[in-house]
């Protein structure tokens, strides 16, 4: 792969042109994206994809994998969804409430909830994603120990809650509080990292659809997570997938729950607006 500067020639000519057109039409875009906050910064950059360009990772996968995801009966992710449904209705201890006793039926009460995360916790001045939110409830309301990151229980609850939003479009209204996180996530996405000296944009914006080894590169969209990844032989979160990419370019692997990973999630969610949530996804 050519190691060109991201800022100048990572984009093939027609993408650079479309990026230029997009910059000119940004003001118009602000209205359709529905947030004044966008006017304050330039969302379009080397990592950006225009709405009509955005594709699900599933589009780059084999027919076998697509069938596996699209058929709930054979989608292995549903084993975690089932486990989540069970945990939802169970109390961790006799005195503690179950999720169900407060939130009632998840398919109804959790509809659209997963799409709101990560969000900015103003009081604690940090980002919070769905995993952290589940654990907060677990500790504060259920008086139980928080689940470790990537534990089956946390993945199960996260998958069960996210299922309620399946099919809904990623349409976060990016409010003022998320702007700094968005900017930092964007900077991370565009920055060269690791021994391989690659930015996310190099593969997932400049070369999606092309091959790396025997695999076709996707756009790095976040909407299918939590997903069952064949490589992991189990369900995993978006953060795990981001860590996998970091190890792929031989960069320092950021810890689960770190602010940088959450900022990247914010940027990715916004970059993928218009795609419909596919979780539980099935990926290579």
């Amino acid at each position: 792969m050519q190691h060109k500067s991201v800022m100048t020639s990572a984009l093939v000519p027609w993408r650079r042109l479309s990026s230029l057109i997009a910059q000119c039409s940004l003001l118009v875009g602000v209205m359709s994206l529905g947030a004044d906050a966008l006017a304050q910064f330039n969302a379009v950059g080397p990592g950006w994809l225009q709405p009509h360009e955005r594709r699900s990772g599933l589009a780059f996968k084999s027919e076998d994998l697509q069938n596996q995801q699209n058929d709930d009966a054979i989608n292995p992710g549903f084993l975690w969804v089932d486990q989540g449904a069970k945990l939802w209705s169970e109390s961790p201890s006799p005195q503690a409430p179950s999720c169900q006793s407060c939130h009632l039926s998840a398919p109804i009460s959790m509809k659209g909830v997963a799409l709101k995360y990560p969000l900015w916790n103003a009081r604690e001045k940090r980002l919070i994603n769905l995993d952290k939110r589940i654990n907060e409830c677990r500790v504060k309301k259920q008086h139980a120990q928080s689940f470790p990151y990537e534990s089956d229980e946390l993945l199960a609850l996260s998958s069960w809650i996210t299922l309620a939003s399946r099919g809904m479009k990623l349409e976060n209204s990016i409010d003022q509080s998320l702007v700094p996180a968005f900017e930092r996530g964007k900077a991370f996405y565009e920055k060269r990292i690791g021994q391989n000296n690659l930015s996310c944009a190099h593969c997932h914006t400049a070369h999606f659809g092309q091959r790396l080894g025997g695999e076709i590169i996707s756009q790095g969209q976040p909407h299918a997570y939590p997903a069952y990844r064949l490589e992991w032989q189990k369900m995993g979160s978006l953060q795990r997938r981001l860590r996998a990419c970091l190890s792929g370019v031989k960069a320092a692997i950021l810890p689960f729950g770190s602010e940088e990973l959450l900022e990247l999630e914010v940027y990715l969610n916004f970059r993928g607006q218009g795609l419909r949530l596919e979780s539980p996804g099935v990926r290579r």
Partner: protein
Amino acid sequence: MGARILIPPSPKAGDVIDVRILIQHPMETGFRHELSGSAVPKNVIRQLKLDFNGQLLLDAELGTGTAANPFLQFQTQLFESGWFTLSWVDDLGVEGTERVQCNTRAS
């Protein structure tokens, strides 16, 4: 560890149906290593049985060559309503079981 037995809803008596089984199990090969360097011990589902109303439909012996979270699909002909019962045991002796009811309607 959960499992799913998937059958068509209300099949007609006499129909040949697809039965699909999915079991949550890591099917550890014994060749995987932790970051510390130690090998994760082998633990796979050794034996798996599926019966319908007590009649054995599938008797399988699995190994490390079966993918994690085993999936199996096969056919059977149904003549009556009843229960599908799936039972399995792994290398550690942990047993699992799952049942699903199937109501056939008259053809």
